[in-house]
């Protein structure tokens, strides 16, 4: 049983919603509403969801860029919420993040060399010099050249900027990388380069990844395990192979059925969802998905479903999970 490098338990992040500056909180926007996640050593956990599901807030809360409202975050065996500022700073060496927009995640006034040195200088410590010496090699690892060290971010293309961001995340020798939509802003051909790069460094440097994206094809490609988020909750999680072959939660089924696949012979039954994503400050009672679900009944609008096991390590939060005559069947008639 591989051990977990990151274990998130019942994580909550609520944002108070006030009527005006002076009134007290009228209600809470429940961006992350009790999330349990595990990332195993050396593996990639894909977190999928559409806009507004809370996945970016989840990433920022795990990194403690915002403070969680409740729950626990256990990284490499230590509870992050019990650490003071100095200890947390040291922990940051091992847990780094790659952001979505390469155009704004690099300070445009800094040269590449300074960008890569910054985490080293920020951390302080005795191994500063040793780490600095590794920087040129790191550049090579991400496919850039030595003379790029003296250039500014605006001289690079989107894909190259993302490589710089990845190199920066690697300077401190982390063990976990949280990647928040790392290829969403990139062209398809560049995306392929970056995904290959990520896979290569994962196996070379024995990294663990938490890969967050709304792009299901990319997540399906990259992940060992996957978790699907909806309105602040995990509705389904487990081994990627199992879930993509046989999704159990109605939302997952609808989501998968809507992904455009570049194969004109690909056939599937489409599931159309009614309605809109719920208001996170005022979610529907019971299962948050019930107003849009074709299978929903009275139980669904009264009781919140818990994550229950429906297969090996395959958990679903639904009162009526699994296959039914109306559910999706995936038939692939030909490959490209």
């Amino acid at each position, binding site marked *: 049983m591989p051990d977990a490098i990151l274990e998130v338990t019942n994580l909550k992040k609520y944002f108070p919603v006030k009527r005006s500056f002076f009134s007290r909180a009228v209600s809470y926007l429940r961006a992350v509403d009790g999330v349990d996640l595990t990332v195993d050593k050396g593996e990639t956990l894909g977190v999928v969801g*559409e806009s507004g599901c809370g996945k970016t807030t989840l990433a920022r809360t795990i990194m403690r860029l915002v403070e969680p409202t409740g729950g626990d975050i256990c990284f490499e065996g230590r509870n992050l919420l019990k650490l003071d500022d100095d200890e947390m700073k040291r922990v940051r060496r091992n847990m780094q993040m790659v952001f979505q927009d390469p155009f704004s995640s690099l300070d445009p006034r800094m040269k590449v060399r300074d960008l890569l040195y910054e985490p080293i200088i920020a951390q302080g410590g005795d191994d500063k010099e040793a780490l600095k010496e590794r920087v040129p090699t790191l550049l090579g690892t991400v496919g850039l050249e030595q003379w790029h060290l003296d250039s500014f971010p605006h001289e690079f293309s989107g894909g190259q900027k993302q490589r710089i961001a990845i190199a920066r995340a690697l300077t401190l020798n982390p063990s976990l990388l949280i990647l928040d939509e790392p290829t969403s802003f990139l062209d*398809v051909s560049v995306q392929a380069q970056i*995904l290959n790069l990520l896979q290569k460094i994962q196996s070379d440097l024995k990294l663990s990844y938490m890969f967050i994206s709304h792009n299901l*094809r990319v997540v399906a490609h990259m992940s060992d395990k996957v978790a699907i988020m909806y309105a602040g909750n995990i509705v389904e999680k487990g081994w990627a192979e199992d879930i993509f072959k046989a999704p159990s939660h109605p939302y997952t089924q*609808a989501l998968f059925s809507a992904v455009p*696949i570049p*194969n004109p012979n690909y056939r599937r039954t489409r599931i159309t969802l009614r309605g809109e994503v719920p208001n996170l400050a005022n979610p529907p009672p019971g299962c948050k998905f019930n107003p849009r679900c074709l299978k929903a009944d009275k139980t669904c609008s009264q009781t919140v479903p818990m994550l229950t096991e429906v297969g090996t390590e395959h958990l679903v939060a639904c009162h009526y999970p699994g296959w039914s005559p109306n559910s999706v069947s995936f038939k*692939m008639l030909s*490959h*490209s």
Partner: protein
Amino acid sequence: MLKIEGLKTYFYTYKGVIKAVDGVDLEIGKGEIFGLVGESGCGKSTVALSIVRLVSWPPGKIVDGRIIFEGEDLLRKTDEEVRRIRGSKISMIFQEPTTSLNPVLTIGDQIAEAIMLHQNTDRETAKWRTLETLNKVRIADPKRVSKEYPHELSGGMMQRAMIAIALSCNPRLLIADEPTTSLDVTIGFEILQLIKELVNSIGASVMLITHDLGIVAEACDKVAVMYAGHMVEKSDVKRLFENPRHPYTQGLLASLPSKSGLAGEKKRLLHVIKGSVPDLINPPQGCRFHPRCESAKELCKKNKPHLLEIEQGHYVSCLMCNGEG
């Protein structure tokens, strides 16, 4: 119905002349959904803007070519004539509905405005036609929504409103520039279905511009692939996916993750097209793709390829494929 011949649109900037569209030919038949595919900077949006003459000078100018719509060359018409066609016979929807809709008018007002303008009706008729249109684009509770402002609606609903406005005049051609890129997958899929249905019901054609080959496979009848201002391959959809001939198309398809489906083989290394998109001010000599092409030969650096038909309805612009080499 729409035929573009030799279109060239250049942008004159202080850095030099950007040859955004450099000789593009295409044809869209009646009732067809035509996909224009390419990565960022390939010129696909510029083609669309050139058709409706929304390319502003400075710095952009349509330098050459003919755009034949319903038998007449649009580029020879006056601005006023094109303005009348734009929005009535040819309408357009864009990627970002938030910027395309007027934030200080309600949705109902904006749709009614379009209806009054193109269908020549009075306010009363326009009002209930608005509700009818909102129904057609599957917006629940049209009465309430028509009184709301754009910022109160979700992305999907705004895009539906855009489609409502665009289709309110019964256009012959709808140009949709990345209509689903900023939307979620589930919503985007519904928008595509909606476009397909509505366009079928009024017998219009669509030029669907996208960078996503999945959308092309789902929604389009014919497709053209653009690279660096040129059209490199053109065919019907089935043939393009089954038998891609241009190395760029082949490279693009091979670099897609999960292209056989979500539960396919995973974690194999993707095929990568080496290099990066060329500078359009000084594009490579000869075939613009040759620096990145694995099958490039000496000839490709000197001679420009042309779009030639290699099999029925399938055109490729490549010296190696056409036998020009």
